[in-house]
């Protein structure tokens, strides 16, 4: 049997070697499981809160769906929960939600993409490091400020261009929301673009590509799923946004996709009901939770799509 050269033989004990006592090991194990347990509780609390929300939404709206058929809920085009002749067509609220979110995206996609391409591919480092924190500061502005900004400044401004624009409308809040979600859309898509390896850019330049062509033909396609995820997350934020629409889009349930009209979104309806005093077990009270479930499903869907896209883009290169 071959033997190791003496220089490689196991070293003898130097000084007094460490030997763990039983109590040391016990304390160690105890601390280990205690710390692990605390962290588990912290992690589990987010899951329990989510489950709790789902539980409340479902149980509270059970009473609602016992009286109103799902078919009426989804096909009626009127939403008048507190009227004598109550109608519960949630599509009335969904139409406004979709319209406002759509306008927000129509603003945010071109603006966010242009900003992200500029920051990632054109801006010098100093410029990027000044602009990006400013951009992320937009996130810190309270949404109620955006709401009054829209109602008192932006809508009057738009009315000078668009004569038929109502005081409460979906266009103004939609556009302001498009700016409001820029921290999500531009910043996250810029991160995705900067994650594109520089070797890929160099490959483009080596073929004679211009800077713009490298950005559009190499970087954007390579970061595509990350960019898409950014916009889907921004969209789900826009769908769930409350104050801007509650203040500036009006609170009148109105089945309409016309951006010049005012209309209540799902969130605006919920906040409106929350401010009135409704009897606890009335159908109007329960309708809040039914509307909430619809909102929950919409944002959950977008978040899931965003999650899977983001996971895919991490694997690309």
């Amino acid at each position, binding site marked *: 049997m071959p033997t190791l050269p003496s220089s490689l033989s196991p070293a003898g004990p130097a000084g007094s070697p460490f030997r763990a006592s039983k109590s040391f090991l016990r304390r160690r194990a105890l601390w280990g499981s205690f710390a692990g347990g605390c962290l588990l509780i912290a992690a589990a609390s987010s899951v329990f809160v989510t489950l709790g929300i789902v539980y409340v939404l479902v149980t509270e709206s059970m009473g609602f769906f016992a009286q109103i058929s799902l078919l009426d809920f989804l096909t009626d085009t009127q939403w008048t929960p507190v009227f004598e002749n109550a109608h519960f067509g949630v599509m009335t609220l969904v139409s406004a939600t979709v319209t406002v979110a759509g306008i927000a995206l129509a603003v945010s996609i071109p603006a966010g993409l242009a900003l992200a391409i500029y920051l990632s591919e054109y801006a010098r480092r100093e410029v990027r490091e000044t602009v990006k924190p400013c951009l992320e500061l937009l996130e810190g502005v309270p949404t109620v400020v955006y709401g009054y900004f829209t109602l008192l400044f932006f809508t009057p401004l738009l009315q000078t261009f668009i004569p038929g624009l109502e005081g409460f409308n979906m266009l103004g809040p939609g556009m302001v929301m498009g700016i409001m979600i820029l921290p999500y859309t531009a910043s996250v898509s810029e991160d995705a673009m900067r994650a594109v390896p520089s*070797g890929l850019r160099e490959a*483009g330049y*080596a073929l004679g590509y211009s800077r713009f062509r490298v950005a559009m*033909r190499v970087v954007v*396609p390579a970061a595509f799923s990350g960019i898409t995820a950014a916009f889907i997350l921004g969209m789900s934020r826009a769908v769930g946004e409350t104050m801007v629409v509650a203040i500036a889009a009006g609170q009148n349930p109105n089945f309409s996709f016309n951006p010049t009209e005012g209309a209540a979104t799902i969130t605006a309806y919920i906040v409106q009901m929350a401010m009135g005093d409704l009897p606890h077990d009335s159908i109007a009270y329960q309708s809040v939770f039914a509307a909430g479930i619809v909102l929950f499903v919409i944002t959950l869907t977008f978040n899931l799509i965003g999650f899977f896209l983001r996971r895919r883009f991490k694997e690309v290169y």
Partner: protein
Amino acid sequence: MTQKIFHDQHVTQLSPKTEPPPHAQRESLAAEIRKLSFWYGETQALKEITLSIAYRKVTALIGPSGCGKSTLLRSFNRMHDLYAGNRYSGEICLFPENHNLIELDPFMVRLRIGMVFQKPNPFPKSIFENVAAGLRIQGVQNKKLLSDRVEQALRDAALWEEVKDRLSQSAYGLSGGQQQRLCIARALAPQPEILLLDEPTSALDPIATAKVEDLITDIRNRFTVIIVTHNMQQAARISDFTAYMHLGKLIEFAPTGELFTTPQETLTRDYITGRFG
């Protein structure tokens, strides 16, 4: 620093006094580097390099890490211009026009000179579109012409048989070695005047490396190739001329056989015998 005179019949070393007429240069040289220095900010990475690149031959640049061989290679397509603070002085003359490419528009230079990088870097596109990318930017739109030249480039890169049935699939489905040959095809498709290879096999396994070396040998009579390599055996196998660089200087330049068998400089001899590097 001495520089060996070529003995190859097709190649004549230019001396400043007796410059051959332009057409004779075309016979022999694809480019000539004259007193090229280069700085990354304050750091000088190339020191007055003078070197001739033989037309339709393979020239290898070897030397220890940090000797400037990749820097020299990347000067040819002005890759350094992408990053701030870099500076050149001297000339890299492209023949037959005898234009100094340091003074040309870098985007125009890159249309004429192709490059393959250390790591395979195909675009997130189909195999076909990867190879067609360089043709499209040169304005080739005719579908027949495009597909002919894509096929030719893929054949040149010894990849055609492996991918001809899946040209529309993503390039990321290919193995690392195939991706690198795809990148070679992408660089070859626009028929570059010079093809730069920056350690093209350092990320590949031995079998994939052998395939790339074979294809370089196959195209050597149709393209001017400059290859940077860490692997001396590779330089010895595939190149016609070898330049040995050390600390930003060109130490020795000779036909490959001579440089490896009878190196004239101590530094060269030490490096190729493995005493350092």
